[in-house]
């Protein structure tokens, strides 16, 4: 679109939006946010990118095809559910590992499948929306 002003703004905004999207993803379990909102924001970031530099460059910045990212995201979400099998729990039962303690109160932080699932959601939403947006962009 070769607007110098927009491109210059986009340089800041893309990074900002992307960081913000990760922020929304990570805090989503406790405050407004989560995988959907994060993924949508991430997609917006890369749409801004593609508006500034064209879909080809935005795609290459993504390092992987959006469809692939989405598929991997779905795989991650599925695995987050299947992990419960090895702990004798039903599908999608959240598995929590407390780092430095044995409960929420005593631990420093936790590793858990719930967040892994949300990351899968994030990737699916990001990849899918970008896939659609880029396809439209390339066809017009």
């Amino acid at each position, binding site marked *: 679109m070769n607007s110098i002003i927009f491109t210059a703004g986009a340089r800041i905004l893309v990074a900002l939006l992307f960081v913000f999207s990760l922020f929304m993803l990570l805090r989503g379990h406790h405050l407004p946010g989560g995988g959907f909102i994060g993924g949508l924001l991430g997609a917006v970031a890369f749409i801004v990118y593609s508006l500034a530099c064209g879909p080809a460059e935005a795609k290459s910045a993504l390092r992987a095809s959006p469809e692939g990212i989405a*598929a991997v995201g779905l795989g991650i979400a*599925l695995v987050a559910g299947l992990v*419960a099998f090895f702990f004798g729990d039903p*599908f999608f039962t959240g598995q929590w590992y407390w780092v430095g303690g044995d409960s929420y109160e005593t631990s420093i932080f936790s590793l858990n499948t719930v967040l892994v699932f949300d990351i899968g959601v994030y990737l699916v939403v990001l990849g899918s929306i970008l896939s659609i947006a880029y396809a439209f962009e390339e066809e017009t």
Partner: protein
Amino acid sequence: MTSWLLVMPIAVPFATAVLAYLMRRAPAGRWISLTGSVLSLVASIALLMAVLDEGVIAAQMSNWDAPFGITLVADYLGVVMVVITAITGLATAIYALGEIPERLERLGYHALFQTLIAGVTGAFLTGDLFNLYVWFEVMLISSFGLLVLGGTREQLDAGIKYVALNLVSTLIFLSGIGLLYGVTGTLNMADLRDAVANSEDQTLITVIAMMFMVGFGVKAGVFPLFFWLPASYHTPSFAVSAVFAGLLTKVGVYAMMRMFTLVFVGDIGFTHEILIWVSLATMLTGVLGAAAQTDFRKILSFHIISQIGYMTLGLALYTPLALMGGVFYLVHHIIVKANLFLVSGVAYKLTGSTDLNRIGGLYKSSPFLAALFIVPAFSLAGFPPLSGFWAKYLIVKASIELEMWFVAFIALFVGLLTIFSMTKIWGMAFWKPHPDGIEPVPTRVPAHIRLPMMLPIIGLATMTVLIGLFPEPFVQFAETAAAQLLDPSDYVTTVLGAQR
């Protein structure tokens, strides 16, 4: 572990879809899809064994008690639908090896196909109303993709109508869920049974029930909501139309059967009475529509509608025998109708068209295919001793037992008209010589295409014959399924009492 038996028939096709998509460019995609379909069948048979062993089984996803978490549950009806879905899935996955060109594979055919199977299976197994909506959507969006994959003008045109009408039904369904939740405060279907029964505003419940009936009615393709079906089913690739014909409308019928035996049973004199008339109109208009067509797949498409009428009639009559007939009909019809569409694909390969006026000569040069057509075609027409006869027999007997002479008359009369259409295909595609004098010799099609296409047809035809000749286990199964539907106390206690 019960929990995982319920999960695997859904999880396997999803995992397959992911892998098949990531490896879609290599020929690996189709083999991954095929392997996945085999595993799905194994998983669903394992579930079947468990259900036969224990009766209704249920599990709480994410380990939250019902009705707070999402329940997966398999009773006889649910599990048989899952198994038959896996069978249809495997059959069409094999068929696709021969039919689907690489171009469509690269566009993600296998992934879309597997998510379709996953969505259908999820719909059959879920015990949660909103979750049912989600599976409906998974199935629907996959079917959208598959329907227009390839992008011919015909497909796009069909896609517009298919998508438009299905989206409307989806939104009606979604609103219905919202409203029902607003009345009862719950989404678990077993929990809803009591909540609905105890509701003080039964008129409102009936109104919402009618909304569900309309929403499911579009999916099932009942009169007068079936437009999307004949508008589209003749356009996608044959493997796709086979799996559509076999499974998609049945999900609507299944959902109707589930909701109108488990939840909406407070005003049977109204809801089910209406459904009787809807069913009759469906049977008649569908079969008349078929009679008017001269295209192989269009005839088959209209017949789906007609046969759906029998299934909903089984529900509407609401006696053990009628429901049994409905369940039997569901299973029989999936096998038979999917197979007929697969046959139409082979006929197309051999003759170059599905327009009955432009093809012919198959009987002379492809007797084997002719035999494989005859079996599902006459089963569909209700000829004994094929599966369709027992299905129709149960429905007719149920209506005669109720002394609903008119219903029985229509059921039989529509059967006669079905014979008419099936013999029309037989006469024009098989008996009649090809108008251009072409001899559609099967061996002209290369073996690596022909064999994968024939194998599932043989398999499904064999099943049709076997069910017809040895219906007892299936009848008994349907009987138990019907009993569980009419008295869902097992279902309810199993779901609500499922251990965390």
